[in-house]
């Protein structure tokens, strides 16, 4: 299936949970926040939230800023 990850189309093999996606990206255990189709998926639900075809996924972090 295809998802839009941080604005770019990516082909991933499903079924895939948010946790599994983060693991694949090397972001497992990192401090990030995830939004799917503009709804926040809380960290406690990363393991159960399954992604669907065409989901728009945002993975954000804190960086330097003023």
């Amino acid at each position, binding site marked *: 299936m295809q998802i839009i990850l941080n604005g770019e189309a990516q082909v991933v093999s499903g079924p895939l949970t948010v946790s599994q996606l983060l693991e694949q*990206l090397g972001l497992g255990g*990192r401090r990030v926040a995830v*939004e799917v189709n503009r709804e926040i998926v809380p960290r406690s639900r990363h393991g159960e939230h399954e992604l669907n075809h065409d989901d728009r996924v945002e993975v954000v972090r804190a960086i*330097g*800023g*003023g």
Partner: protein
Amino acid sequence: MEAMIPAMQQAVASDALVIAGKPYTSRLLVGTGKYKDLEQTRLAVEASGAQIVTVAIRRTNIGQHPNEPSLLDVLPPSRYTYLPNTAGCFNAEDAIRTCRLARELLDGHELVKLEVLGDEKTLYPDIPQTLQAAEILIKDGFKVMVYTNDDPIVAKRFAEMGCVAVMPLAAPIGSGLGIRNPYNIRFIVEEATVPILVDAGVGTASDAAVAMELGCDGVLMNTAIALAKNPVLMASAMKKAIEAGREAYRAGRMPRKQYGSPSSPVGGTVF
């Protein structure tokens, strides 16, 4: 170090900056952008003595060195109070979305710096959009420190609606032009019911001292430190300027006079 006399110790100790019910000994808040690298960020923040640091919320770089140290590794949230900002937002909706992501990212953290910009050239705030965002964020449980212009009426409005701090600009963000309108900053301070912090426009230590002498409760700055030739040294200078300005404000300056007034007794000379 020379021991402080008890009276002074007491005066210094009782002068905490309280934001949303939490006391801070430092009145300097710093941004973490524009530094050469994370090590310079860490050293400058340390030298500034700041306890509150602003951060931006951005997309993770997918596929790029996920094991690189992050800002949260060098500035541990256990030691610093994070102030996620909504920099780069030009409407209320984006700002609210950014704050909600920040809250998730930082485990329910509620303190945010709201800024909704009006145009890319001046980076002046869009006040109607900022008011709209503040209202929704406050209802949603956020503790909002709001970046605004130096309009005293607008500042009062933000305080009345429940913002925990109002942060007027001294000059455009990143301009380093100093306190362009000290009279307005003073009006805002005089009417204040919540902490007033100058946010943006400070260029060097004397600007920070002026803000504090005007009675501001603190100053938030980024570029003045990050773009100094020696950011760590400037961070230390800013720390002292904030402290000096605050003490001068509390001490109460002498009245200005038009003519000279001798400092030594006029009588008792030998001639």
